[in-house]
């Protein structure tokens, strides 16, 4: 019966070993997925940051968090043996370069030596972290239990307040919306038109000369002059008389420039009430 029980133990051990192996394998493949996602994300951040949009950054984060969740689930699975109870012992340390190891670790760990083994097989936190933890616990001891209790209560109160706010965002938002509604419109289309017209062609602005024949603003935009009694268009043949043509249209200055090629000046006087606008031609 001793033999039988030994055999059972052996079979049991074998099964456990196999379980461990499969668990480690699937863990390795999951970690490889995370690693790939991380490296492609880092590549994007470093090389495509100009084109990277916020939604795609969020997508990357979502992918990573999903993969980490799967790993967590795997570790919590009943069939997964407790890795915590497994002990890893370095059997052979060597200062020489190990090509297999380098290949396995993507050139990150080329030698399995005394120097690096304590780091890689470490089960305690890093020395700096340990130091910080020590400081924190020292401080925690220094604070009396009463004070600590007070702190805890204050923090709890803050957290519950914050949670309440986060859970009821709708009410606040609706409050805002109703406030906006109370304020009515924040803009007035009539004002928009008036301002646009003012900067585009000075509508409503003080004119520097009486509204007359010269059409202000953009040309060819339909008949816009209803004011002036006469419209007059001056065409100048010679360049020398342009000043006359530019002059105030109310005063026929072209006649005030005697002796300068009067024959080349052609003056048309039309009635403004006519439907034909000279600038439309």
């Amino acid at each position, binding site marked *: 019966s001793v033999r039988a029980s030994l055999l059972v133990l052996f079979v049991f051990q074998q099964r456990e070993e196999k379980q461990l192996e499969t668990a480690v394998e699937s863990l390795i493949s999951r970690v490889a997925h995370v690693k790939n996602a991380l490296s492609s994300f880092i590549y994007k951040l470093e090389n495509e940051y100009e084109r990277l949009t916020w939604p795609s950054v969020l997508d990357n984060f979502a992918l990573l968090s999903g993969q980490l969740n799967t790993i967590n689930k795997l570790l919590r699975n009943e069939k997964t043996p407790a890795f915590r109870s497994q002990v890893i012992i370095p059997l052979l340390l060597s200062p020489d370069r190990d090509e297999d190891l380098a290949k396995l670790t993507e050139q990150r760990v080329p030698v399995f030596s005394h120097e690096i083994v304590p780091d890689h097989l470490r089960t305690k936190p890093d020395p700096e972290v340990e130091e910080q933890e020590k400081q924190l616990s020292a401080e925690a001891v220094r604070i009396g239990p009463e004070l600590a209790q007070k702190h805890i209560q204050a923090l709890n109160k803050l957290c519950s307040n914050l949670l309440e706010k986060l859970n009821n965002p709708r009410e606040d938002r609706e409050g805002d919306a109703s406030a906006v509604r109370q304020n009515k419109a*924040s803009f007035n289309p009539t004002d928009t038109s008036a*301002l646009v017209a003012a*900067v585009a062609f*000075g509508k409503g602005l003080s004119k520097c000369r009486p509204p007359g024949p010269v059409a202000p603003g953009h040309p060819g935009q*339909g008949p816009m002059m209803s004011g002036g009694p006469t419209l007059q268009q001056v065409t100048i043949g010679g360049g020398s008389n342009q000043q006359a043509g530019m002059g105030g249209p109310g005063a026929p200055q072209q006649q005030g420039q005697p002796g300068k090629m009067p024959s080349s000046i052609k003056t048309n006087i039309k009635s403004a009430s006519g439907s034909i606008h000279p600038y439309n031609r």
Partner: protein
Amino acid sequence: MEAPPVTVMPVTGGAINMMEYLLQGSVLDQALESLLHRLRGLCDNMEPETFTDHELVYLLKGQQGNPFILRARRSLSHPTSPWHLRYLGQPEVGDKSRHALVRNCVDVAASQSLPEFLNEMGFRMDHEFVASGHIFRKGAMKVVVSKVSRILVPGNTENTERMSLSYLVELSILAPAGQDTVSEDMRSFAEQLKPLIHLEKIDPSKQRH
């Protein structure tokens, strides 16, 4: 004296054939703070910039009868800065596929003798106004929120009167001709300012009446 260069399209081709893409809107005084707050959040992180400008609009009546318009601007808050001379072409608003008004635009810096120079060339001032407000940038986009005031006594920029109880809001981009994709960016930016303000492609000729 040489004949003035009177033509409707003075600059075509070459390196300075720039187009201005423009969306316009306005905001009531009481909503101004909310708008500025939102713009500070949306736009590039920079020092808030304010300005007070005096714009003089000059006309030159051409042989074809189409007046030629130049806009001269000077800063009242920085009197030593150069003047700014701007030509704006005919606005193109008909194209439905474009989300913004598009017009030819030429900007030139000028010295303080610009008004005399324009007068000598035969230009006459048509109207003037004072615009003061805030400038924001987001990439190539420029957002100007300004109060427009009429000048009561010609030439006296101290004596002004508000045009309306709203601030004019203009979203613009300067881009080489044909880069219509920028109007997409402008539209999505304008979307983010709703419902506070509505920035639209406004045909100025329709506002004439």
